[in-house]
């Protein structure tokens, strides 16, 4: 890990884990999207994978529009999994599992599945590529999901649901 600059260490209350891990990780995330864009002109996003992959098994007309892109999306997702695995082997020292309750993951996942598709993007499509494009639509999308997510997480925490 890279050491944080001194002034930022003073902001320890806001950043109890420092910022280097986040900033370096974010740069890699952006770099990954940038590499794909430079070579192919594609601005990559992660949530369309859900629908494009469903087109392999479902004949619903909504999914058919993603048939052309479903192969590279599968490869992209495979890359994400492998890349995270490289991190796990190199830095994490083995597997890590969450303590967040299964029903939160499942229920939250359903909302994420509906919401990202209706809203035309997720944290990578709107957040990284859309904001990078200075797209007003994406900025609005990011604000919408960020504010509602904060509200939801605060309510859940206030209800005493941990973890």
């Amino acid at each position, binding site marked *: 890990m890279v050491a944080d600059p001194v002034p930022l260490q003073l902001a320890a209350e806001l950043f109890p884990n420092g*910022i280097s891990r*986040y900033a370096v990780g974010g740069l890699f995330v952006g770099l*990954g999207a940038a590499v794909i864009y430079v070579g192919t002109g594609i601005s990559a996003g992660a949530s369309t994978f859900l629908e494009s992959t469903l087109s392999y098994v479902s004949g619903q007309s909504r999914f058919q529009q993603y048939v052309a892109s479903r192969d590279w999306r599968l490869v992209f997702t495979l890359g994400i999994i492998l890349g995270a695995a490289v991190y796990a082997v190199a830095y994490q020292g083995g597997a890590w599992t969450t303590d967040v309750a299964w029903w939160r993951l499942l229920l939250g*996942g359903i*909302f994420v*599945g509906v919401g990202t598709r209706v809203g035309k993007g997720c944290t990578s499509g709107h957040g*990284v590529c859309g904001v990078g494009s200075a797209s007003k639509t994406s900025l609005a999308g990011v604000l919408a999901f960020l504010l509602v*997510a904060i509200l939801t997480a605060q309510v859940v925490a206030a209800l005493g649901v941990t973890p």
Partner: protein
Amino acid sequence: MPLVLVGGLIFGFGLGYSHMARPEVVLNFLQFEDFGLLFVMFGGAAVTGIVFFVMPRVLDRAPLTGDPFERRLKSFDRNVLVGGAIFGVGWGLSGICPGAAYASLGIGNVTILWALAGMFIGAYLQGWWRSRATDDVDPSPTGAD
């Protein structure tokens, strides 16, 4: 395809390195206990922002596909806000978003399969519903999300 794989690898490594692949870290952020996560999204957007700005001025077309370099611009309508809000509920409840969920599987988090199953169920539900809606107008079928 190999390039997409490499890009995905870097992308996934970043999600792992930033700890964003851990739902707990995302929830800590949303509960104002650790603002570091802001650096992930805006750090990523800063890199793509520069590349999206520079590439169209350097090259006419992408070398591998021959596609023109375009910014990621989606049409704005009510769906962006409605969908964003629904996504927000899910993100705030579970601490998981699509890219980070795939990456979470990569760091050995098998519990995340619950969230992945939920996402596919959710995506299928809206697809099933919108396949039936006659007035479904989504003018951006080729865009990547």
